[in-house]
């Protein structure tokens, strides 16, 4: 259908634009940052004749991959949903700090968590020794080298991917809707019949992200000897140096991710979106009363398990100030690089995400919105190694391309690819909550597109922009696989340094650097979050 146009007072006003230059910008942004390098690899895999055979090994790998990714997403949802609701609907002291702390599990490299938990849960680790002693067992009952060990570690690491979108969704709900429900019923009724249906789309979106993150995870399954598709892809690259076979081995990951996305769309697509009247006030919390302390503890337990336990386990050998000083001396350059590159990447990702989120929220051509959303989210499921080789193939060529390839920009491009899905998710969820009527009214009044964007949309999109930038920053800061493949000399990032130090056996310094990584990500993210909330709460 063509765009509908109505003449009003001499102005041509497009109502519900179907497609435009913004949509083209969205496609260009997606292609340049993600799909061009990945597409080169995937196409190479298809053309190389390495399509996976549907044999027993294929089904065994597929089942194991689904169990690890699905199990970790389930655990992340079990932990993340209550945390999100507690922080979004209860008046807890230190709410801003508690919210910022929920980000920290995303900052601890997954392989560091795996090693920390192995120290604790190893066959001769303290937990097994204690259980053997207390229960008089012959064999240690816990085995970290298992699918369950992988689910535990990945689920803990991914729960913020559920908690944070739930928080953003709750922040965006019109409090009048819940207040009306409270007039008619109890708090639980309001939560069950009003709040939960409204946040179900973001909850499913977060669970999908956690599933995709589990699907793309390499380090944890590799350390725990759990053979999943990412380990298979790594083996194709590492053992056989066959780029086409490695890319082809990733195709089942793409199929699984597509199926998961389609399932999420089917479950969430029919639910009503959160409505929003202008202006909306700051979300109001309920005083938890006697439940205040238990609620705070409940919000902290997942963080402690995901961050403190593995880091303390690592640092238990000999934590001292000298470890921090040595860590700083060996990695200060990488710290500076991370502080420079990751915010750049998060900002670029946000800019690229804007037209993509618009396309998802506003374009009404049948199938376009899910297609664009899938195209922006699915790369989360693909191994960073694929993206790295793809970036080399695109940018390592004569001419201006080399200027980018030899510069830190190539690292930032890899980080943008990791940050973009999170920025898109947060922005699109927020954009859906902005009534079309606001834009239409502004255009009818004569505002240009730029004025509509700057004066109306961006202020209303602040929660999404804030959440998208913060989550994008976290994803960019933690990016490792692609960075290891493309960073030019002197442009290594802190996760890359942590990775090499860990393999050098410097457990104390690794723990110290992880603390530093946590701090340099939490502080700017918390500052951005608090600043944004203060601006919103100003009259």
């Amino acid at each position: 259908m063509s765009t509908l146009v109505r003449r009003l007072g001499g102005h041509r006003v497009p109502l519900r634009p179907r497609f435009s230059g913004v949509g083209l910008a969205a496609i260009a942004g997606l292609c340049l940052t993600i799909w061009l390098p990945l597409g080169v690899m995937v196409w190479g895999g298809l053309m190389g004749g390495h399509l996976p055979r549907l044999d027993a090994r294929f089904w065994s790998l597929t089942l194991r991959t689904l169990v690890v990714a699905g199990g970790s997403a389930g655990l992340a949802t079990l932990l993340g949903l209550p945390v999100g609701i507690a922080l979004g609907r209860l008046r807890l002291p230190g709410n801003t700090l508690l919210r910022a702390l929920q980000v920290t599990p995303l900052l601890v490299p997954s392989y560091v968590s795996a090693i920390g938990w192995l120290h604790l849960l190893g066959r001769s680790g303290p937990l097994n020794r204690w259980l053997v002693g207390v229960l008089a067992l012959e064999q240690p009952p816990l085995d970290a080298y298992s699918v369950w060990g992988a689910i535990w570690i990945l689920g803990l690491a991914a729960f913020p991917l559920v908690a944070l979108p739930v928080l953003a969704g709750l922040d965006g709900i019109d409090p009048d809707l819940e207040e009306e429900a409270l007039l008619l019923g109890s708090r639980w009724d309001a939560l069950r019949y009003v709040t939960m249906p409204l946040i179900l789309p973001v909850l499913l979106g977060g669970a999908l992200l956690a599933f995709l993150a589990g699907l793309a995870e390499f380090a944890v399954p590799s350390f725990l000897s759990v053979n999943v598709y990412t380990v298979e892809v790594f083996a194709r690259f590492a053992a056989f140096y066959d780029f086409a076979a490695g890319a082809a081995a990733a195709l089942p990951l793409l199929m699984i991710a597509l199926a998961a996305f389609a399932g999420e769309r089917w479950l969430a697509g029919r639910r009503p979106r959160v409505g929003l009247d202008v202006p909306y006030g700051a979300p109001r919390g309920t005083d938890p009363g006697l439940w205040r302390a238990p609620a705070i503890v409940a919000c902290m337990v997942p963080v402690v398990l995901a961050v403190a336990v593995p880091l303390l386990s690592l640092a238990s050998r000999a934590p001292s100030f000298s470890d921090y000083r040595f860590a700083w001396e060996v990695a200060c350059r990488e710290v500076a690089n991370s502080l420079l590159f990751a915010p750049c990447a998060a900002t670029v990702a946000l800019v690229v995400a804007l037209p993509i989120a618009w396309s998802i929220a506003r374009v009404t051509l049948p199938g376009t919105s899910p297609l664009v959303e899938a195209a922006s989210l699915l790369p989360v499921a693909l191994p960073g190694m694929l993206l790295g080789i793809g970036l080399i193939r695109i940018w390592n060529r004569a001419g201006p391309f080399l200027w980018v390839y030899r510069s830190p920009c190539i690292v930032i491009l890899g980080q943008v690819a990791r940050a973009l899905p999170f920025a898109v998710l947060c922005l699109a969820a927020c954009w859906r909550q902005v009534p079309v009527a606001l834009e239409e009214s502004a255009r009818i009044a004569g505002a240009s597109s730029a004025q509509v964007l700057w004066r109306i949309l961006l202020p209303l999109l602040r929660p999404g922009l804030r959440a998208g930038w913060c989550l994008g920053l976290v994803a960019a800061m933690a990016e490792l696989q692609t960075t290891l493949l493309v960073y030019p000399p002197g442009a290594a990032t802190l996760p890359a340094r942590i990775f090499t130090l860990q393999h050098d056996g410097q457990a104390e310094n690794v723990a110290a650097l992880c603390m530093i990584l946590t701090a340099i990500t939490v502080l700017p993210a918390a500052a951005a979050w608090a600043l944004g909330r203060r601006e919103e709460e100003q009259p």
Partner: protein
Amino acid sequence: MLALLVLAGCRQDSDTVVVYTSRDQLYAEPILRAFEHETGIQVQAVYDTGATKTVGLTNRLLAEKDHPQADVFWNSEVARTIRLQRAGVLASYVSPQATTIPARFKDPQGYWTGFGARARVIIYNTRMLSKEAVPTSLFELTDPRWRGKVTFGQPILGTMATHNTALFLVLGSERASSFFRALRANDILVIVGNTAVRDAVSRGDVPLGIIDTSDAYEAMADGAPVDIVFPDQDGIGTLVIPNTVALIAGGPHPENGRRFIDYMLRPETERALAWSRSAQIPLHPGVETPEHVRSLDEIVMLDVDYYAIADHLDEVCTYLDELFLR
């Protein structure tokens, strides 16, 4: 800011050498800084770790082949260096410092030269096993008393793959296949790599592992309760794997690359590596080593050709992939 970052990539300094190294940064960096101090040539280094089986750098060098960015590749292993040679990534350079390095550890045309080697040994936890109880041959690891008590790294990656391919060449396909099937049947624990093996044995998760001497010496230097046995000294011998250094074909600073290679192949550099925490075995005769480090002439070496290993790597890895990684 992005423009400034792009401009950073435009500068091409002639007094520079770009080194890709899979040697762990903690050990490589002091040597690179010493080279800078002595020659005034700035080293721009890109690091990987042996733990990632040089995946990053080898794949990167292959992907960059048409527009090389590196001058020198310092690899902690040899078979993948030969693979790069076969792929046309390397250039020939016979360093004058390589004269006294034994012929088996260098390419006759100078495409790569070995130095500072490691041996593939059995590591054991001294709190769980006495020295007398430790197997002295790899083939004893298939004994039922070691069921579930032995670990090794992924058999198709890194020095583990090199070692396994060497065994296939020395034992023959039938005997080697039988050995690996017996290991599988004996519930050998397959974990990600040498570092993980070191940590697993140090923690006491399992009492025995197969590992490189460098990783074992690191654990011992950290005070871990571990020791090593050089397997099959009365039989086929122990595999020795050298570090390798190679000039990249078409690199941006070939002359500086040659100077760097000369520096790396000096006996003084081998001495520094021998006395480092990871204790590499010198290949130059007469280089002093710490007391606990065996010199080359004290090791009965597995008699195998590195080129044959490189040529049969894929075939063996395909078999072991099916056998162990299901």
